[in-house]
């Protein structure tokens, strides 16, 4: 496998200026191991400065949710900063009992308040009080910010995490003398996550939803657009969660979700920087080896059915207009994926791109216009999405017509060889430019390993793009860009009138 990779990518990348030696050195500096519990760990050595970055990628995202627990993958991500039975507590034995009491009282309160008939308000109030009292009691034993404090104190920077449709990622960077501390903390947060301050943090996440989705015209449009484009697959669910679910699910739900999906065989940890593998492996075995082995979660059952008619969602807003159109396309692992990548580049990359030249430069109807893959994810069949941001006085309809004209060209005319070559050259150089940044590398290696089962796909994807022909582009464009496969989303501007109603949560 390794040799095949080298032979093929050498040919491709040396054209972009990377010497054979550089690439061989990259592979030589990259070490991969799968621990006995199933966890895959990648170490990339870069010894320039005494620092390292890491990324933990869990092969689980909001696509693993079902109605009732939407938003839970993201909620767990927040909880992964709250510590364990050893980090974040002043008295675990007591806190543990208090937290169990919180769950018990919450379950009672939640059932009562959601009663569909004969809701007993007095009883609900009483149960709510019992729940809140239990929270206050549990709070006495928590040091919920201890995890963050230890990282900050040790000089950790850029500590954060994200939850996408496909994956959840955790990352930060540390001085290299803190490797053991890092190995302890990063394994500890997944070994025994404790759901302390869960309901406060649920409020925080609700604020995040209000900020990103409810209070932003684009946020509102993206949520509605995906819900329209996907009728069966969870890509159509709100990633941050529907407000009702967000205000209902419990720590018990989160624990069950973690037990199912946060298992070592479903996770990859990649480290890039000043790390010596001979010293690092024993520490990784010691600490990450503590994660209990468990079977890989069952693959998702639902596949989005073939779209049979065009769909449109229009938001009438006081904001300026925007236009989106999405077309269903296969998953990233599909052989045509490279062709979709090339179409995206041709349409969107740089000032020579077709949409820039037509919509931005010549027609001046858009301030920005592009077509991109992987919305909202790429592990499962997803959307190729075009968009245009109108300039003053122009409408979504003008954007739609101008995009349609460019789509027609790509369906009917061969892409000139020089244009195709320019795109391929930029893809190679783009990869090269990503190779000198610890945190970017850690994330990319871990993501490639998660999605494809091999980090080398980072390089192979370039090789596949190099093979895409003008005929491939026409074929894929004709198969994809059809009216019955299209979902349109747009914002139309209306003058400010009375206050709009928004989706729940404010009270």
């Amino acid at each position: 496998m390794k040799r095949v990779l080298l032979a093929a990518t050498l040919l491709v990348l040396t054209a972009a200026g990377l010497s054979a030696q550089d690439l061989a050195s990259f592979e030589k500096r990259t070490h991969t191991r799968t621990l006995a519990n199933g966890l895959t760990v990648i170490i990339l050595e870069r010894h320039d400065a005494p620092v390292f970055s890491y990324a933990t990628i869990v092969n689980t995202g909001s696509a693993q949710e079902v109605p009732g627990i939407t938003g839970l993958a993201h909620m767990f991500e927040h909880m992964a900063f709250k510590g364990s039975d050893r980090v974040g507590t002043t008295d675990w034995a007591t806190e543990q009992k208090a937290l169990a009491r919180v769950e018990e009282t919450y379950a009672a309160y939640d059932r009562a308040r959601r009663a569909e008939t004969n809701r007993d308000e007095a009883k609900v109030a009483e149960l709510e009080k019992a729940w809140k009292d239990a929270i206050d009691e549990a709070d006495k034993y928590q040091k919920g910010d201890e995890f963050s404090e230890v990282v900050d104190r040790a000089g950790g920077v850029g500590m954060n995490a994200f939850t996408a449709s496909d994956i959840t990622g955790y990352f930060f960077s540390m001085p290299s003398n803190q490797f053991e501390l890092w190995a302890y903390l990063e394994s500890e947060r997944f070994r025994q996550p404790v759901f302390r301050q869960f309901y406060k943090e649920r409020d925080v996440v609700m604020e995040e939803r209000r900020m990103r989705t409810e209070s932003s015209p684009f946020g509102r449009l993206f949520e509605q657009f995906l819900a329209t484009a996907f009728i069966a697959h969870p890509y159509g669910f709100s990633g941050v969660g529907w407000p009702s679910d967000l205000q209902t699910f419990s720590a018990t739900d989160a624990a069950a979700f973690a037990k199912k999906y946060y298992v070592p065989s479903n996770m990859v940890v990649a480290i890039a920087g000043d790390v010596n593998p001979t010293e690092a492996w024993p520490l990784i075995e010691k600490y990450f080896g503590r994660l209990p082995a468990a079977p890989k979660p069952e693959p998702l059952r639902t596949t989005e059915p073939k779209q049979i008619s065009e769909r449109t969602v229009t938001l009438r807003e006081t904001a300026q207009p925007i236009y989106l159109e999405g077309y269903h396309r296969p998953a990233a692992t599909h052989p045509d994926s490279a062709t979709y990548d090339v179409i995206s580049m041709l349409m969107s990359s740089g000032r020579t791109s077709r949409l820039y030249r037509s919509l931005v430069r010549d027609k001046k109807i858009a301030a920005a216009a592009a077509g991109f893959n992987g919305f909202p994810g790429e592990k499962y069949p997803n959307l190729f999405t075009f968009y245009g941001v109108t300039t003053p006085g122009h409408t979504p309809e003008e954007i739609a017509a101008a995009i349609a004209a460019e789509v027609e060209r790509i369906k009917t005319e061969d892409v000139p060889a020089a244009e195709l070559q320019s795109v391929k050259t930029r893809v190679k150089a783009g990869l090269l430019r990503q190779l000198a940044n610890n945190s970017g590398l850690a994330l990319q290696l871990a993501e490639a390993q998660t999605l494809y089962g091999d980090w080398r796909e980072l390089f192979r994807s370039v090789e596949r793009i190099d093979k895409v022909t003008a005929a491939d582009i026409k074929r894929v464009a004709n198969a994809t860009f059809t009216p019955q496969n299209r979902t349109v989303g747009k914002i139309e501007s209306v003058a400010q009138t009375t206050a709009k109603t928004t989706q729940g949560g404010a009270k």
Partner: protein
Amino acid sequence: MKRLASIAAALLIASSAMAQATHYRDIKAQPLRKFSMPQPKRVVLANGMVIFLQEDHELPLINARATIRGGERNVAADKAGLVSIYTQSWRTGGTTDRTGDQLDEFLEARAARVETGGDTDSTVVTMDVLKADFDTVFPIWLDVLRNPAFREDKITLAKTQANTGISRRNDEVGSIVSREATKLGYGPDSPYARQPEYATIASITRDDLLAFHKRTVHPNNIIVALIGDFDSAQMEKRLRDTFGSWARGPQVEKPELPAYAPKPGVYAIAKDDVTQANIAMVHPGIQRNNPDYHAVQVMNEIFSGGFSGRLMQRLRSQRGLTYGVGGGIGANWDNPGLFRVQMATKSGTTHESIEALRGEVTALTNSPVTPTELALAKESILNAFIFSMDTRAKALNQQVLLEFYGFPADYFTRYPAEIQKVTAEDVQRVAKQYVHPDRLAVLVVGKEADFERPLSTLGTVTPIDITIPSPDAPKAGAAPAAGNAEGVALVNKVADFIGGKAKLEAMTSLRRSASLSTPQGEIPIEAFVQFPSSIRTEMKTPMGSMVRVVTPTAAFMVLPNGAQDMPGSMKEQSLTELKTDMFTVLRNIGNPKYTFTAGATEKVGDVDARILDINADGANARWYVELATGRVVRTVTRGAQGEMTADFSDWKTFGGINIPTKSTLSQNGQQAATVTLSNAEVNAAADANTFVKP
């Protein structure tokens, strides 16, 4: 329910069988290995250009960046947005030899980038190229730097883009709160805060862009930085050959920005399509060269560092009020930053959050920092220090920054020792000195109907109108009305008090000598006005003489270190001052560009005065006129420094013209100086050199 609880308990129980007894407290880190990042080589050419060369052989890439002094702060307010039009069309407008579109084709086919950009302080021309293409792309970078064509079609495109930005600036609540809080903090006219408008964008011409290029792009204003896979000695020779013969040009200076402080209080912006209120609190911050800078950094870390700072812990983790909250004392490199706190919370907890934020700000100033907090903050900063120099590119960028703002090259090296020195007392002291809960301008953007109670329960609320002026609306400050007859009558009464219309019209020049009494001491000042529109002022400050000259054709300053052109914003300000000068106004009664509106009557001291609003060719002034006599008792103007008020208490006649001899000046309600006139001469002759740049 029992079952649920037992599941929960089971899940929460430590899987002790697997766990080893290790705790992070038992892990002892070795000291970090000794490390210093290679520093770039600094080369200074005879023409003043500074070059930094940083070798980095990891990948076959070369990056270059020319940083050029002069940015939006060197642009007049009526051309706000010029730098964005300039830097967009600089690259897209091509060079004298090639169009921008040709450059696009050539560069993208080589996966190379040559781009232009800029901000308030500087502009940049960058290059990012594969080593193998350096020889073909380097000449293009140079050509863009020196020979831009600013073709009209790309200026139009840049203007379309800028107008799109203007049209969309009120769509997202986050951008509204950031922008308007900045305007509150720096003042709406500050180049660090002001916004381009359709009118300012429309007024920008190709000549303006060429002029800005001509004014700024000279070797003595440029820092060139290269990083990548090259040999420094060879590269140095190449750059010397390339740039060595380029002649010096005028130096770009940093404009003097007037000090500004917002009026404390509550400001509100209505935004109905949101479920959150966005809250910001601002007042002036400090400058980077402040000796307390490092103590302030420690204070900031305690207040809002990472996830473990007070704001995140107390407002987010403990109370669940917000997703994002942050703040601290800002320090700009060569001008004061802002103290700023910002957060978003659901509409129903707006007041609760304002109170909580105020509480945290106040706590900074009046409750002690604990030893634990101090230790955590200092260790966090010191242990993370390595990340400020963990790549060759960062080391290079730091040197460019220090060079640009005139800081010593070892500034960052000394940083850890300075942090180490900071004590709890230092933190307490700087908090008291630089954080002022009573001076905060508090901005709330959101849907007030959903707040717990009206904002007015917090006191007087100043609404901020963020309506975007339409492209063809009159410029802000233009005459709102044609004035009224009473206004004309009132201004004529003032003219009579001063000496009559005939005398005013016969006046061609006015020389005044006065003494300015300020908290810093007495400053002699001499002002010479050649009507209608030339003015020279000379102040004899303790640092030496400062001359400012503005004429229809020139605007310059003569300072102890030499003469230099006046920054556009300052010229603009001087012209506005001249337009609203009392004698200029009185000489323009009857000029259709000057309108006069009489308003209400108010007491000024014990004088019954009628308000006279004047629109002087786009600039506004308000006079308070004593009803009985036509004497002006107070004038109020608005300029870059905010509101300037002059109260006149004594008058004397010189050459038939009644001139105030004693005035008190206040800035934003704070008394700033008194002016005592010692002599005035009407129709004094100008020296041959009065308006000539030395």
